[in-house]
């Protein structure tokens, strides 16, 4: 389950945000604190998660303290889906 979510989000990041389709992203690779995802793309990520999983990520949560890796983001999605 979590692995599926990570794969889906990783695909979205590589294709739509980084525009490097063959780029692989590790489960524990820093996304926000490293600058891999720039601030202009965070809102795209939030909208994608919301549209795909029906899970709301508030704009005040779009920072490295809430999630910084694929694993953390997938964990957040699973937790909220269960709520």
């Amino acid at each position, binding site marked *: 389950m979590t692995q599926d979510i990570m794969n889906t989000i990783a695909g979205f990041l590589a294709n739509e945000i980084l*525009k490097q389709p063959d780029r692989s992203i590790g489960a524990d690779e820093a996304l*926000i*604190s*490293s*600058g*891999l995802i*720039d*601030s*202009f793309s*965070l*809102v*795209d990520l*939030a*909208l994608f998660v919301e549209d795909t999983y029906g899970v709301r990520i508030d*704009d*005040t949560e*779009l*920072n*490295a303290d809430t999630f910084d890796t694929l694993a953390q983001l997938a964990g957040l999605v699973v937790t909220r889906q269960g709520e």
Partner: protein
Amino acid sequence: MTTFSHLLQAFFQEAPDRIAVYVLSANQSDAALSYRDLLARAGAYATAYRARGISPGEIVVLILQHGEDLLSAFWGAILVGAIPSIMPFLTEKLSPERYREDLASLISVTRPAAIVTYPEFKAEIESALQAGGPVRMVLDCSEIGSSQEPDFDSLPGLSRSEQDIVLLQHSSGTTGLQKGVALSHKAVLNQLDAYRRVLGFSGEDVVVSWLPLYHDMGLIAGFLMPILTGATLVLMSPFDWVKAPYRLMQAVSRYKGTFSWLPNFAYNFCAQKTRDRHMEGVDLSTWKAVINCSEPVKHESHQIFADYFQKFGLDAKALQTCYAMAENVFGVTQSPLGRLPAVDDIDRESYMTERLAVPVQDGRVKMTMLSSGKPLDNTRVRVLDEKGQEVQDRVIGEIALQSDCMLTGYYNRPDITEKAFLDGWYLTGDFGYFADGELYVTGRKKDMIIVGGKNVYPQDIEALAGEVEGIHAGRTVAFGLFDEKQGTEEVVVVAEAETSDAQEQRLIADKIRQHVTKNSAIALRIVKIVPPRWILKTSSGKAARSANREKYLSEIPQT
């Protein structure tokens, strides 16, 4: 004689309870500041500056986020006659080492007497300072006393002359930070007079802005004009806006906003990232003008914005354009309000090959140009050919201007100040043409890239890319490519490396992205690794950016 302090004193005496600013923060409730509140907090800063020996005419650099401290520190400096300069705040992406270097660049030329920042940032700033340097103190916000209503007559601000410099404005990056635009009280106030006239802007208006205050559009249109006019400013942080662009529309609805200024990309960004669920109960019918400024203006971006927001009460005729630069304080031209800005369909081939903007005939390929409007009534604009002679309508040349609101100079840089003028005309470095009295801006003579309204100097990016292992310094080139969907330019880096192994090239490209982002807060969209001797050089050995851009476009199929 009128200076900033005279205007502040008048508001303080005559309308102390009028709300000057609403400060909006994502995690807090909105804070309303009256002129009395604003000036009492500024008064506390003024007291602190004076107690520490800051003299009129000295520079105070402000390194603070959007919020009450920044406003208070700024107006406090004005009250004591010191010259505030707002520096971009350190973002989480930028490495501390690079920020220290940026700061050193700024200090070496601007020579500030003091820097104001947050307590947690003080040690960081101090570590960037050299013993015996110009900076005598780093003040942190926690050292400032409680609010104190200013006694204007005892403060040095009122003794400043109109010709004195009131503020400095820098653009970002190493190059920008060494080139502070110095503006006098008179220049700023002349600009505000002229700009208010063309907009019909008054104390009844409500400006809603998320723009950074270290940039001319945010500083002048989104900060000084409303406060020095007695209008209302609704101020949100750019960091909050970029994560939730719909907050702009919600704030316009809540505060009955009448004016906003946006860079072109923001029209696309707002329309593409806002969903109907964010717009429940939002009414945009009070918006008199949403003014597109600070990067090339695109008709398509206005259409995207109007298409989405009209159903929430937006008047499509509110979408306007402006051509502006810090060297003229702000506005140079403005589209007349109340009608759509003029659109000019020109023949693409004539534009490309003859530098002419002729109306397109049936069956020919067109380019749609959006007017930036007419010169403000205090500003004269000419389009010049390569010999400095004025050209006819519809001939493309360099835009030059003259006004009563020009910069005093680039601060401590008489060398570049002198080069910026030709026979008393300021050369903008932008290309454009006139048609029917309206100015159309077509491009730039300089290689500067504008990403989301922010100026990026390619030489800064090239130097960073050249620091990456596997890349030879001097064998990199950076340029901008316009992205239709986003409505702004994206930064491309081409770098030469010895390796022809695709995997190794990808690793090097990744390292360049990370290094550039860490050190400039600029995200590179495309990094292309090429073999040695790919990059074209000028006779003086510099990378010829436009030639390399053409080469890149011709060799790489666009998908």
